[in-house]
């Protein structure tokens, strides 16, 4: 039978251990704004809770670096007609998400067409990164749509699109 004193000591140790196990988790979040040093060349993983919830509800929360600021501005200004769906947000949420997207947008030059692209799949970067993907893989029902990043990019949810974590379903 444990004595009361021993029990209190054990409890104190348990609390201490629990506290320590939480610390590294918050460390990971704190790291979100820093360069992850990915092999694909400067993939900066940034995050915003509202962006992740709102944009990530129907599709992967596409990282801001995948479109230039003017594209994000155009996308966010037309949420009521968002690729066939009314994805309108309240004004405060839209403002916060737009700022996050624009601040972390791609800084590469404008696309040739002149007007802002609304689809990531139409950007030069997307096309060149995916040019080796076979047509039959795009048609695979498990992939369904190029919007379904997570079908092949197993870590897409955490913003990691590195080739290491690509697994094309068969």
């Amino acid at each position, binding site marked *: 039978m*444990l004595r*009361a004193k021993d*029990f209190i000591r054990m409890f104190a140790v348990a609390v201490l251990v629990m506290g320590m196990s939480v610390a590294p988790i918050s460390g990971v979040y704190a790291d979100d704004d820093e360069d992850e040093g990915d092999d694909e060349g400067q993939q900066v993983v940034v995050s915003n809770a509202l962006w992740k919830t709102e944009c990530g509800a*129907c599709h*992967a929360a596409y990282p801001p670096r995948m479109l230039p600021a003017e594209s994000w501005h155009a996308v966010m200004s037309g949420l009521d007609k968002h*690729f066939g*769906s009314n994805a309108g947000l309240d004004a405060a949420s839209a403002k916060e998400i737009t700022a996050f997207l624009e601040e972390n947008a791609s800084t590469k030059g404008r696309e040739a067409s002149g007007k802002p692209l609304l689809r990531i799949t139409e950007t030069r970067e997307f096309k060149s990164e995916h040019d080796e993907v076979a047509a039959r893989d795009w048609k695979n029902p498990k992939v*369904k*749509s190029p919007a*379904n990043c997570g079908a092949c990019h197993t870590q897409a949810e955490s913003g990691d699109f590195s080739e290491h974590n690509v697994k094309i379903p068969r």
Partner: protein
Amino acid sequence: MNRLFFVFGLFVTAAGFTANSAFAETPVEVLAAIKAEASGTPGFQGFSATRGESFYKTKHNHDLSCASCHTDNAAAQGKHSETGKVIKPLAPAANEERFTDMKKVAKWFKRNCNDVLDRECTAQEKGDVLTYLLTVHK
């Protein structure tokens, strides 16, 4: 000694309560709120799970139903009909987060009804569907 265990028990219970308070409402409370809204409609006679099931599974506009994304089995994992993104189960029995935040419920009914019916759903329709979903078991 016994008293110590009692104190420890209190601690665990308190921790449990804290965890639960992450949910603003329960599905039953959400249903009650929808009922309060529906009661204002003339001729309201309560909700029906059968009617809710039929509404959930019937294709409305654009060849879409609730089941198009949430699947015929609301306790199963769904899939977005356009993007293919995985959708967590809709039935509260299979996903305890569902229908626990009135604001979220209102937002998604509005958005999804607009996609599927080109209009917002009535309180009657929403109440019928939730009544049905509460009968779906894992």
